[in-house]
């Protein structure tokens, strides 16, 4: 075997190894994607129950109470904007992380050019390290859970953002995340978290209207402490749920994006292996032909 054949053979070996890794990563991502989808589904009943309770409490407290809550009231001027970028802890997922960071930084530049102060926060090591690299010095750095975000993680983030809003450090809070549409499709979503829109709370969504049998009964209901106090706790829950849903969708999107990226990588590796095998066979055939020619030429010279 000639030296060039041996080279090609080693390359085939290493490409095959890479293909094994990308295949394994694809399968792991597919399994995690399924789990992430289940977690999105598990949140729905809770969010629905919170919505029904809010409507009940708002009815009892009177709608004027709702608009008085600090996270619902808009600040007089928008001097400071807080941006939360939801990325993943790990890379190798195609454009998943970079498209969020790009959209967030663009929004930040737009706000700065209109004279507003911008504070960044990031979820996921990728986002945090990019912001650090760009000297943006993120306020909040939330890392280590993007594979499997818990509600407590979302609560910590939401409470930080709400505290910044209520204490006047930010006049508007926006979130950037990868919305999950299907395993193959994710889209960058930009949503305003704070001030919370009153319409979001008091309008019932379509899912609720379908099950008419859960209408609150008109019976006399006891409130502990009172409806107003309960409402004051329920409304911030919307922000927590929004953040939690964004984290879950981002996790599902990350696994979907990684699955697609790894499938493409495996396919590319397959093509590369085919090309290299062809090259190796050609080299081997050339060598054999060469040897036959030499034998024939040698035999001819003897006669």
């Amino acid at each position: 075997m000639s030296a060039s054949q041996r080279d090609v053979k080693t390359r085939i070996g290493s490409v095959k190894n890479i293909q094994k890794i990308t295949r394994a990563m694809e399968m792991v991502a597919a399994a995690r994607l399924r789990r992430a989808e289940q977690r999105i589904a598990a949140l729905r009943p809770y969010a629905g129950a919170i919505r029904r309770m809010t409507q009940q409490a708002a009815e009892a407290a009177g709608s004027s109470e709702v608009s008085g809550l600090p996270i619902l009231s808009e600040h007089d001027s928008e001097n400071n904007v807080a941006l939360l970028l939801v990325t993943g802890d790990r890379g190798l997922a195609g454009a998943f992380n970079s498209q969020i960071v790009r959209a967030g930084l663009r929004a930040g530049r737009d706000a700065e050019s209109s004279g507003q102060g911008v504070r960044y926060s990031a979820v996921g090591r990728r986002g945090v390290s990019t912001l650090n690299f760009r000297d943006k010095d993120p306020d909040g750095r939330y890392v280590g859970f993007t594979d499997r975000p818990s509600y407590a993680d979302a609560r910590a983030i939401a409470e930080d953002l709400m505290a910044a809003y209520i204490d006047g450090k930010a006049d508007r809070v926006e979130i950037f995340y990868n919305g999950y549409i299907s395993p193959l499709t994710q889209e960058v979503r930009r949503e305003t978290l704070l001030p919370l829109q009153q319409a979001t709370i008091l309008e019932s969504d379509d899912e609720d209207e379908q099950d008419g049998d859960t209408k609150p009964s008109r019976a006399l209901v006891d409130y502990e402490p009172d409806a107003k106090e309960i409402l004051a706790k329920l409304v911030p829950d919307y922000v927590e749920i929004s953040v939690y849903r964004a984290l879950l969708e981002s996790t599902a999107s990350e696994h979907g994006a990684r699955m697609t990226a790894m499938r493409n990588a495996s396919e590319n590796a397959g093509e590369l292996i085919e090309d290299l095998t062809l090259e190796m066979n050609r080299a081997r055939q050339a060598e054999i032909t060469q040897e036959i020619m030499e034998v024939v030429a040698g035999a001819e010279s003897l006669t």
Partner: protein
Amino acid sequence: MARTPFRVEVLTPEGLVFDDEVGMVSTRTEIGSIGIMARHQPLLGRVVPTELRLYKSESDIVRFAQGEGYVQVSEDGVLVLVEEAQTPGDLDVADLKEKLRKAEDDYAAAEENTEQQRRAGRDKRRWEAFLEIAEGA
């Protein structure tokens, strides 16, 4: 005396953790401890971190460490809606002590009468309650 059973659901953002018939529910609202039995008056209450006890019978009690949330009593039964519900055996004392220490530090560091301080106060209360449950378990 056997109690009339009624349906109780414990729902968290991460899914349904309990759905069964029980004789009594014991929890704590903003106002104080509360025991709910069958045919309780309709109620909507804000619950605070404590040990949630679901009495399937006098001796068979299901326990959870509950976070902040709500309890709703209606004709259909009782719905306990909490941010988290962990079985006491899953609690990690060392981890909780660490979290409590951090919440206390945050509380001390935060400026007086800010949302940041109230938030640290809530964290403190939660980890204190969980620690008590964990040490009792």
